[in-house]
Structures are given as structure tokens and as C-alpha cells.
């Protein structure tokens, strides 16, 4: 189920990137190569981690299910405060308009 969810997420991200971000990406590649190199460096880090994820996971005796739980926990703790803050911001803006 997690795999299906992630696969769908990647397809969606690829679609969004393909439609919206390809022109931006092309512009950065052609005109700001230093920034492009920085992006590549970050992406390489994740690619390397992706290649050796099984080794790291096994070294800490962690099962894939528990690793998914860790990622979900981190994701919730990172994204939920941002979401709540956004809602509050919209609410405050709405209050201002109503007032």
C-alpha cells in the first residue's frame, strides 16, 4: 500500500514538474549553472542514500514498515504546523476582509 501510494505520488510529482517546472528547470540549467550544480549535489545525496538504504536500514535492525512509520511521523511533524499556520493566516486575512 505504501509503495502504491509513493508510486502515485512520484507520478503526480513528475506530471507537475513536467508541465509546470520544466521551463524553469531549463532556464536554470542554461543560465544559472551554479544553482543547477547545487541541485544536483543535493539530488546525488538522496540517490546515494537511496542506493544504500537497505544497508542502512538493516544496520539499525529496522524493518521497512517501521521505517515507513518514521517517515510518516517526521512528515506529519514537519507539514502539519505549516498547514495550521497557513489556515490561521487565511483566517486572519478573512477576518480582516470581513472587518
Amino acid at each position, binding site marked *: 500500500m505504501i509503495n502504491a501510494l509513493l508510486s502515485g505520488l512520484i507520478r503526480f510529482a513528475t506530471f507537475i514538474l513536467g508541465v509546470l517546472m520544466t521551463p524553469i528547470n531549463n532556464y536554470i540549467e542554461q543560465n544559472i549553472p551554479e544553482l543547477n550544480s547545487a541541485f544536483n549535489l543535493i539530488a546525488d*545525496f538522496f540517490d546515494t542514500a*537511496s542506493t544504500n538504504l*537497505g544497508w542502512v536500514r538493516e544496520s539499525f*535492525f529496522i524493518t521497512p514498515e517501521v521505517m515507513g512509520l518514521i517517515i510518516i*511521523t517526521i512528515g506529519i511533524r514537519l507539514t502539519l504546523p505549516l498547514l495550521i499556520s497557513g489556515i490561521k493566516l487565511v483566517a486572519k486575512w478573512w477576518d480582516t476582509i470581513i472587518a
Partner: protein
Amino acid sequence: MLKYRKFKTFTLIFLGILFLLPIGVFAKGTMFIGNGVVLNQCTGTTCRYDSAGTTNLRFIGDNTNFEVDHKYTFKLNFSTTTSMASPTLTDCGLNINGAYVSPESRNSGRVNYECNQDYSRCDSTYVSTIVYTMPSSLTSVPYFIQCDMTPSATRYTYTNFTMSISDSNGSVIQAIDSNTDRMIEVNNYNANQNNKNRDANSEMIGGKIDNNTNVIGGKLDSHANTISGKLQQIIDNLTNLGSNIISGISSTIQSVGNAITNKIGELIGTQEVCNLYYETNNSNLLHGDAFEEGYLNSDGTLSGVNRNNFTTPFLEIPYNSNAKLSYRYYGDTTYRYCIYDNNKRLIRCTSYNDINNQPDINEITLNLTNQTSYIRYSGRMNYGSTYSILKGDCQRTGIAGLFNKFTKFVSDFFNINTDGANTGFQGFINDFTNSEDYGGLQRVITSPLNMVNNMNSACTPITLTFPHTNNSFQLPCIQTYLSGFINPAFITLIKLVVNGFICYRCVSQLLLFFHDLKDPHNDEIEVLDL
């Protein structure tokens, strides 16, 4: 009350395990005894004897109801598989109740001796027949056959081990084979202790009979004569049953203890793997027709390796810190030309210029205690300015082995070749500015998602190749590495504990997080309040 009972039960189980564990660890088998010399390191019917000399083998028998003044024939079959040197079995005699009794006739000797083509394996069979007329003073007695064996410094495999007792008519009244535990004595101490116990019991029983005899008189004697045979048989059967049960339990505990001992030894790195080789400045040293080497397989067969033509390294041998290296030095019993360096684990033989004391090495034997291999060299060592060194490039297993490997890796790593470092470094920088090979912004988003998608990926060993050098370092998968000396069930237990703890932390953190969301004064929420 219930809690106390549970506590008491667990405490008893725990104490029981604590009590049994050391017994299992230290209950190592010693199967054959000699006269002050213990033949140890026995596995099944394989024992080894680490130094040459004469020793006694004892074959323990049952208490048998011998009839007074009857003649009995004791016949011993004793087969071995040996290397070049073969033991001899002589002077077999009968020890009755602790005293040696001269036989009326004795016939001992080797009846079979066959070797293979390269003489790396020889099978020998010995038969010793002893005839006794039981003295009138003894009826039911403990006995054992005692033989002198002259072994050399090598390993023997006892392939057959039988003893039979026949009466004067030639009928076999008792036969004991190699599978009978009663033939195997534990050690001299136990034997002596048994003698003491037996003497004490005899005195006690004797006293009681004397007292009863005064009261009952001849009546007791008549009953005793009637039931002695059946009663003795029942007692013998019960004794044998108890002995078999105890020996079975002991064997189980012993095997478990040996396994634990071996695993602990592997874990802390007491075992070593050595590549043994000769270092010499004269290729003719220790080469020749007399040179030989071989190893004993786990199944007891002997194999020859690279006879007359050894390479470097020619043989890998399990090697532990208790290994003994012995050597014979022809014409010089003081061994002053050979020094065994225990720290460097090598035997160093130097030459001597005096022609009268020519260092002619007759034999060098590496005895590996508790291992299944040995090496023996016979050869002639030149004198003069030549030298020959038997070296062992040993690596420890387990934690100590890992440390040794790490030390070697560091040592190798700093011995690097930096040629081409400039070019490689420039390429390293240029690669990251090549926009054709990298996706830039898109990869920043898709790479973390791909990483998450690889959560189920199996472990593959990580090989780190350091830039600008030819050195690489491989990190094996932890479970593959640990499975070499830790039971997989124990790894499962570790995973259960670790994952349980992580799950608990994740869930408790999420609960706390959602609980704090309801708190309007929560700092985390207020900070993000734009």
C-alpha cells in the same frame, strides 16, 4: 502472593540456567586416559596426542560375575587411522580390583598395516588376547585391560574399538564395542576416586554382613547364594539405565557448552586463520624427497597437499592461540637453533657454521590444538648464511579480527599512490557543472521520493572505492556478518526490541504532538503563527 510466586519461579529458572551454563561451558570431553597423560581434544573416536612417548590406554569393563577358578579369555581389537608413524600396542594386561594380575598367556600385536600410495594414510589393527584363570579370592570384581601405547607426535583416529570376554568353552559372555560409554573413562582422577569409593563401600558392606551373620547365621548365606545372580542382574540393569540417562544429559550439556564456548571464542576473536609459508633465501631449503605435508580432514581422512612442491601460501589452517608448534632437531635435543616466537607466530631456525653441529632439521611439526589440521615437514636445512623461516600470516576472526582488518586497511590506505590526483579532482568538480547529465531542479524533488520508494530494498554490501587510490573497503551487511557467530533467532530478538522501541517513540511523539495542538499557548504553534 501471585507476584511472589512468579518471581520465585523465574528466580529459580534463572538460577538454574546460571548453574547449568558454566557446567556446559567447561564440561569438555576427555575420553581416553593414560598413565598421567590425558589424551584430550577428542571428537567422536578422534583423539590426538601432542607429544611422543609411552602411555597407557585403559579399557574399562563392567563388573562381571566371574566364577572362581574358571578360565577367561579377554580379547581386544583396536584399530587406528594414522599418518606415517603408527603407534604400537604392547604389554596388555588385566587389572583386577586395582591390582595387576599376570596373565597365563598373552598374545599382542599388529595384525594389519596398510598405507596408501603416498603414505599419507595408514590403517592399523591390533589384537591382544589375554587368558586368565580367575583367582579364588575374587568373584565379582571391577577390571580393566591396560595396554601400553607408544605414539608419536601426530594424530590418531580410533576407527574401531571392541573388547570381548569368553569363557573356557569359547562362548562370548560379554562384548563391548566402541559405542558403549562404559568403555570410556573420564580421567585418572575419576578412576582413583572410584577406587576409593569402592573401597569405602566394600568396608561398609562387609561390616554389615558380619553383624548380620552373627544374628542370622547360615540362613543369610543360603538366601544370598540363591538370589545373588538375579539381584545382581537387576542392580546392573538399573545402574546401566541411570548411567545412560546421566551420560545422555551430560552429552547434551556438553554439546551445548561446546557450542557456546566456540561462539564466544569466535565473537571475542580468539580464533585465527593463518596462511603459513616459508620464507627462505635458498630455494633448496626444506625441499627434497623427505619433505611432506598433509592435513587431517574433518571426516578423519588424511590428505596430502603439494607433496615436494609447496607454494606460497600453500595451506590455510585454522589456528588459535593455544596452538603448539613443536619440532625435532636431529642430533640436538636442546633445540637451540630453532626459536618459536609466540608473538609473531613463527618458528625461526637459524643455521650454524660448525660442520660438526650441522643444523639438519629432521622434522618440524605444527600441532594445532583443537583443530583438525596439522603440518609436518621433514627436510634438510643447509648451513652457512642461509635461513628458513616458517611464517604465519594470521588474522583473527570476530571483533578482534575486525579490528585487525581495520588496522590493516588504515595501514594500506596511507600507503597510497597519488598519481593522477589532480586530473581526478578536476573531473570531480567538472562533473557537477555538466548540465546534460543531471536534471537539476527536477531531481531535487524526485530523488527523495525515489529514496522513500526504496524502503523495501534488500541490503547490498557497500563497497567504498577511495578516489585516486586502488584501495577499496567493503562493508558487509550487518545481518550477514552477524549470522556467522550469532544465532538468527537472537537477531530477530534484537529487531523486535529495536523496532518496538522505535514504534513506541513514534506513536508517543505523534500523540504528544496532536495533544499539544489543542494547547493555544503551545510555543511551536505560536512561533509558526504568522
